């Protein structure tokens, strides 16, 4: 599994005030722990009920199949930590794959196409961030506009699914990292793991990361405390745009195609993963590790439904809906108790 650092939890001062503090899990960790427990329970149910569910490869395939979602959800984590939301990510994936496939088909070299599509998503994110900050537009509205824009552009370029036959793309798609006992992960997983690691480090150890938490805690205070609120806010949407386009690239590796209808509703999956992972929708609390667990929960539900075989895949949605509801209620309870 990926190694993720949570922000450093300082060791408790044991002698402080004669042991007045009794150990109990930090309220900030409760949602993450709950998700972890849920994950373990679900996995045990799967292993118990279905043959070969316990194979390592089955577990690794959750990462292989959801690497792009993980990358997108990491970007979304930053946005939600500031108390915002980014609805454009699914459409950015569609735009990225469509542009990449179109240009590759037209014979552009991969070395140009790859940076270009990453730039498109990043600039779109920057634009939305700027609109949100300078014109005081609600993130919901600004990114909704971004979503229509990106999806519309993708549809304008090509309505049909375009297969990608570029050598570099095919190589990347087929690249496997094999381990001793025959199990493997794809390149996508490695990229996603690197993204997760960097994000976790940034959030826990850098000023930018802490400013993200501060803004989510109280943006007005953050401003009065002299923190660069505007710059940070624009940066998180830019980052989310970048993650979305990187997710799009991974998605095009994964499907070897570009299609303007890719990633429909994916923004909601990403938001769901982040929330189930224990990030507070109002901002200011949560960890990248939680997001990883959230993505795993979503992937595991799909896997279980696949193994069950006779269930409609829409059950995934129903279960996700119920979980989302449960976790939002849990967040309410935890934050209320903290007060």
């Amino acid at each position, binding site marked *: 599994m990926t190694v993720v650092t949570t922000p450093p939890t300082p060791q408790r001062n044991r002698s402080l005030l004669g042991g007045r*503090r009794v150990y109990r899990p930090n309220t900030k960790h409760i949602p993450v722990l709950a998700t972890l427990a849920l994950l373990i329970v679900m996995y045990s149910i799967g292993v118990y009920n279905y043959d070969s569910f316990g194979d390592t490869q089955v577990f690794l395939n959750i990462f292989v199949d959801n690497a792009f979602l993980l990358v997108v959800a990491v970007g979304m984590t930053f946005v939600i930590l500031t108390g915002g939301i980014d609805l454009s990510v699914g459409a950015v994936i569609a735009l990225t794959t469509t542009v990449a496939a179109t240009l590759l088909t037209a014979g552009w070299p991969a070395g140009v196409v790859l940076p270009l599509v990453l730039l498109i998503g990043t600039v779109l994110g920057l634009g939305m961030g700027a609109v949100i900050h300078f014109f005081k537009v609600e993130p919901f509205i600004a990114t909704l506009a971004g979503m229509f824009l990106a999806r519309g552009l993708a549809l304008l370029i090509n309505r049909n699914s375009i297969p990608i036959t570029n050598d570099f793309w095919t190589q990347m798609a087929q690249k496997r990292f094999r381990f001793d006992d025959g199990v493997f992960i794809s390149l996508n997983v490695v990229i996603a793991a690197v993204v997760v690691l960097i994000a976790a480090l940034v959030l826990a150890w850098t000023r930018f990361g802490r400013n993200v938490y*501060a803004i989510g805690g109280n943006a007005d*205070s953050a401003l*009065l*405390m*002299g923190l660069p609120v505007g710059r940070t806010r624009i940066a998180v949407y830019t980052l989310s745009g970048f993650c979305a386009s990187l997710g799009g690239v991974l998605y095009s590796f994964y499907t070897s195609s570009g299609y303007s209808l890719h990633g429909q509703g994916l923004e909601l999956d990403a938001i769901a993963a982040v929330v189930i992972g224990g990030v507070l929708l109002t901002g*200011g*609390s949560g960890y990248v590790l939680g997001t990883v667990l959230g993505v795993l929960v979503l992937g595991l539900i799909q896997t279980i439904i696949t193994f069950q075989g006779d269930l409609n895949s829409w059950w995934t949605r129903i279960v996700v809906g119920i979980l989302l509801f449960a976790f939002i209620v849990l967040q309410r309870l935890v934050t209320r108790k*903290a007060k």
Partner: protein
Amino acid sequence: MAEQLKMTGIKKVFPGVVALDDVDFRLLPGEIHALMGENGAGKSTLIKVLTGVYDIDGGDIELAGQKVRFTGPLQAQQAGISTVYQEVNLCPNLSVAENIFIGREPRKFGRIQWSEMRKRAQVSLARLDLDIDVSAQLDSYSLAIQQMVAIARATDVGTTKVLILDEPTSSLDASEVEQLFTIMRRLRDEGVAILFVSHFLDQVYEIADRMTVLRNGRLIGEYRTAELPQMQLVSKMIGKELEALEQIEEHAREATVTERGTPIVDARELGRTGAIAPFDLTIHAGEVVGLAGLLGSGRTELARLLFGADRPDHGALLIDGKPHTVKAPREAMAEGIAFSSENRRTEGIIGELTVRENMILAMQAARGWTRPIPRRKQDELVDRYVKALQIRPADPERLVRDLSGGNQQKVLLARWLITEPRLLIIDEPTRGIDVGAKAEIQRLVAQLADGGMAVLFVSAELEEVLRLSHKIEVLRDRRLVEELENGDDVDADRIMQTIAGGATT
């Protein structure tokens, strides 16, 4: 002595209002300087100009002889101006240490050094005689401690030349205020220029060396505290003589309730677990009952039970002698009970509506939405109360958020008075408003009681409770500990003793 800070001819204009008009202000190093004025006099604007939140439309700011112009709070902080605001402006979701250092964390190769930061936080809090777990989340501590953390943040930088304290004491109790003053004196002796804003005149007289008075965005003058008697200061602040203030002094004590019929409300062993222990309380018509106690002693909780905003889980409530379960504010309103909340902004006025709309709200709610109040009737009512309460500006169509705090409070009062309640519960009606408006609201309460209305008056200011109430209920630790008939033998000290738990009965 050379000024640490010198502002000359400061002008700040908002659409339709001149907030600051040619104001001069100076701060000397090593002094505590109070900025005085009523709400809306321009104190907050001046502070925001100084801290870089607002840009100025005219004038000069000189800091230690250098001309400066700030484009944001960050620039002001870097120049050595630190601020502690009335509402704690920190991030509740971060640790204490982070709140002190965020934005200037100790780093190595861009990586925050957490242990170093915690160590330094411990040191800077130790300077304020505070020994707490700096890695705990800020909102796990009381408001008072949070305020101390804010001060630690403001004073931590060794480069602080000017420290601005905007109403820092409004959430502190007496001993915490003392502690804060000790720190302020120490910083003053270290050469920091301190600007102090407070509505508590006693505190200002205790701590300030000099003061500057503003009125209506203009400079009235700069005085040595020792040379300006309190009464004169107040008259400079409100610009008129103070007979009004003095008149109500003796009012309440003279008026004694002679006839006592059935009480309007009679709470018997009423209580709610976790909010307030079971209590007995009767309120008669024409009686002002004061609730005294520290912040968090259960004052508001008691009031909310009577109004049905919270449900009691113990005891009974008799209204006009008949048992009654008040399950919701609507039912209390139907019985003629009105409740004006302490949270003016969040539970009271609706800033986006006009004065008229705000006033009509409660009455309309009582009638139900199917029977709208005719516009002519509205205008008539609103007109009457705008005049009676002297709401300024006297324009019913003005948005409430543009009014000063004191006038907002009056609008809120008017809203409930329009419903002609028999029992008016007012929670902290005078907090954060200026002396003039305070006096008017106190006088109004006295008048209402004379007119036969029962009033439950909740306030943190003992003097005010003493001045107005016939009967004082003292609360401590969410328990009603004593009921005092207000008379010559009752004074602030006596109540303080009861609150502190040292009263002998």
